[in-house]
């Protein structure tokens, strides 16, 4: 259905506190730095942690950041249940799915509800609905860092830069990390390492 083949439509799905908006901002800033048009939108509720958060980003496009789910190219999931929910809405095609999830499935217990899908079931459903599926190996990424601070944001951004459609070069990527997150020297060291490591841990399933 798509007219403009150059446009790349990306949907980010996850929960509050996972850094979805930061991720979208990093991608958008990279695009601006390479002279591309870009726009994105964020959809979230209240400021509490744990609510559903979505962001929609379009590369080479500047008017509407929102697009029809039938028009999505890449689905970036930071939480599996939120990702599957979105995939269920797509009837027309199968997108590329990148799972960067690093949260366990939430144990929410609203309305005394005890029925939760098993994780394996969710994985299976996601796989069925993806044209290609990539998964970020968070456990191995985590192992590269000692101490309390695991720079997931940078790690998953780095993982995303391996996808050519986004057109983010090594150089631009590093610059963006520095620009947006690298104010503190100690942090910037860790972030630098995270940017090197992140891309190693994204694997096609």
């Amino acid at each position: 259905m798509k007219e403009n083949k150059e446009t790349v439509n990306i949907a980010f799905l996850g929960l509050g506190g996972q850094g979805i908006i930061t991720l979208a901002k990093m991608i958008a800033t990279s695009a601006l730095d390479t002279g591309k048009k870009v726009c994105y939108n964020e959809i979230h509720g209240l400021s509490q942690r744990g609510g559903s958060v979505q962001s929609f980003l379009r590369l080479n496009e500047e008017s509407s950041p929102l697009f029809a789910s039938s028009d999505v190219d890449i689905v970036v999931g930071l939480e599996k249940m939120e990702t599957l929910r979105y995939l269920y809405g797509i009837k027309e095609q199968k997108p590329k799915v990148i799972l960067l999830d690093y949260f366990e499935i939430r144990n929410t217990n609203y309305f005394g509800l005890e029925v939760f899908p098993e994780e394996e079931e969710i994985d299976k459903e996601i796989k069925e609905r993806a044209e290609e599926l990539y998964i970020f190996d968070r456990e191995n990424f985590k192992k590269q860092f000692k101490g309390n601070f695991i720079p997931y944001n940078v790690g998953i951004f780095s993982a995303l830069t391996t996808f050519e459609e986004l057109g983010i070069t090594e150089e631009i990527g590093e610059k963006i990390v520095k620009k947006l997150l690298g104010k503190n020297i100690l942090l910037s060291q860790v972030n630098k390492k995270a940017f090197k490591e992140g891309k190693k841990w994204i694997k096609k399933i």
Partner: protein
Amino acid sequence: MSVKRKNKIDNGIAETEEALFMGNHAVVQGLLEAGVGFTAAYPGTPSTEIQVRLAKLHEKGQLYFEYSVNEKVAFEVSAAAALSGVRSAVIMKHVGVNVASDAMMALAYFGVQGGMVIVAVDDPGCQSSQNEQDSRFWGKFAHIPVFEPSTPQEIRDFIPKIYDLSEKYNMLCMLRMTNFTSLSTGIVKHRPVEEKLSWNGEFVREIKYQIPARYLLHKGLHKSLKELVKDPLFDEFISLKESSSSSERLIITHGAIYPIVEYMAELYNFDGDILKIGAIFPLNEEKIAEIVKKYKYVYFVEELEPYLETEILAIIGRYNLNVTVLGKEKLQIPYENSLRPDALKEAFSRIVADPNDDSVFYEIPDPSPLPKIFDSEELLIPRTLPRLCDGCSHRGAFYSIKKATGEDFIIPSDIGCYALGQVQPVDVGDYWLCMGGGLGTALGMSKVNGKKVIAIIGDGTFFHAGMPALLDAVEYNHNITLAILDNSLTAMTGGQPSPSSTTWKRKDFNPINLEEVVKGLGVKWIKSVQAINVKENVKIVKEALEYQGPSVLIFKGECIVNKLRNMKTPVKPLSIDQELCTRCGNCLIDFACPSIVKEDGRIIIKQDTCTGCGYCAMVCPVNAIK
């Protein structure tokens, strides 16, 4: 009267830089470029980022900003600036306009000397609000021009022009945004503004402020509106996107959803033209009639109410135009929720269909008008609802209230994070209406139901709209208990200061003592407790409930999000000693912090989400949580 202008004003032409701006930040940029020196606001999502940035600019000394005690006061302080010749802006969410409206309706009659814009941000879909009212209606009701931009660039471009019009016609204006325009980010060409913007003005008395025959001002207002629509600058807020072929079809839509409509039109190969209306009120009837009459079919695509549809149908009638109109009902565009592309698929399949093929335009039955717990039936995926954070101090207060009240009490709650206490399994609170509405209705509830009622409110909401209701409680000795959950913060909207914030460092800010205010309102029974002492507090809640007449119990605690934000040391999560744990479920079910979960028959604390707040340890009867 002429006003000496102190601040440099940009007409929005000089553009020297490109940057990514979210809509809310583009508002601030527009205000700066328009030379607006005086701003005030009351917190409310989705307008938050505008306010946070203005607060920072105030800190830098670039302009004046204050978080006022509520929207009405915010409006009034800004109005005074505008009456004194200073360009001013007041920022709030859509429902805030209800609170400010008493002053707004009257100020419209006075008119302004310095330009004044009320920025109202609507929340279609009620992402963070009690309703999804459509602010476009205020224009006609209050006689204020309403403008609605569509992209961050347009927001920045519109604002200086709106100020020019506001000043030229001495009219208060409204910038109507929505969560879509507020939270969309795009590349914006702009002129960085570094200079300090003055907020000094001079009030000049005018006879029109004093005359009793106010209807004369009303008359003047209609005259100004008629002049305004003829202004060439006003025309710039309407644009027609013409397709290459000459078409019989025209879509009429409004700024806030224009980008989505344009996108959908492309996706569905719509071959007609699109009229974007960025000036919602007043409408330039002549111009619109001129445009509309060229088409055979006119489609209205609007988010929320069919405002333009109704207004333009009247124009079509007055001008006797021969067009077929297809609107909300025919296109089956929902009245509710934000109009994302997927929600417009049905409408667009109808727009590109043969308008004379009746089989296309049937009414689709609503399969499930009631909220569902599950989003999808394929795998049972539960809805993600907001909930109190792991480690929120409100949960401590709820625990004590729950233990003290049992099943028998009516518990009106209010608007703030504590409204989430109503979500199971915490389950404290029966309803929330509007800010301050919990206490107000509690008074009537206790009278009519003939029993003590306990109302819940936050410190922010208490100062905003709770004080008059408490005064009423004292005045008529209503039999209520008010639990004020005091985290000295306006937490729900992102952690802005509340009047009692002791952590907000600003030279001219004096934190208000909540207890003294309550005493000052004449309350005789008042106690302050730490929310973390959950067990002791059960007794104190009971005492408050036993008291005949108004009693106030203040629970003090911290917003964990705010605490973590300012914490220098790493979080130390707690854990449960499995030897001691008797699986009583007190922490899991009654207290219900989401970090406490059941796993393989044991109750454990999730180490990656626990914030180490320590509340659950106070709940455990055998001290197993450490």
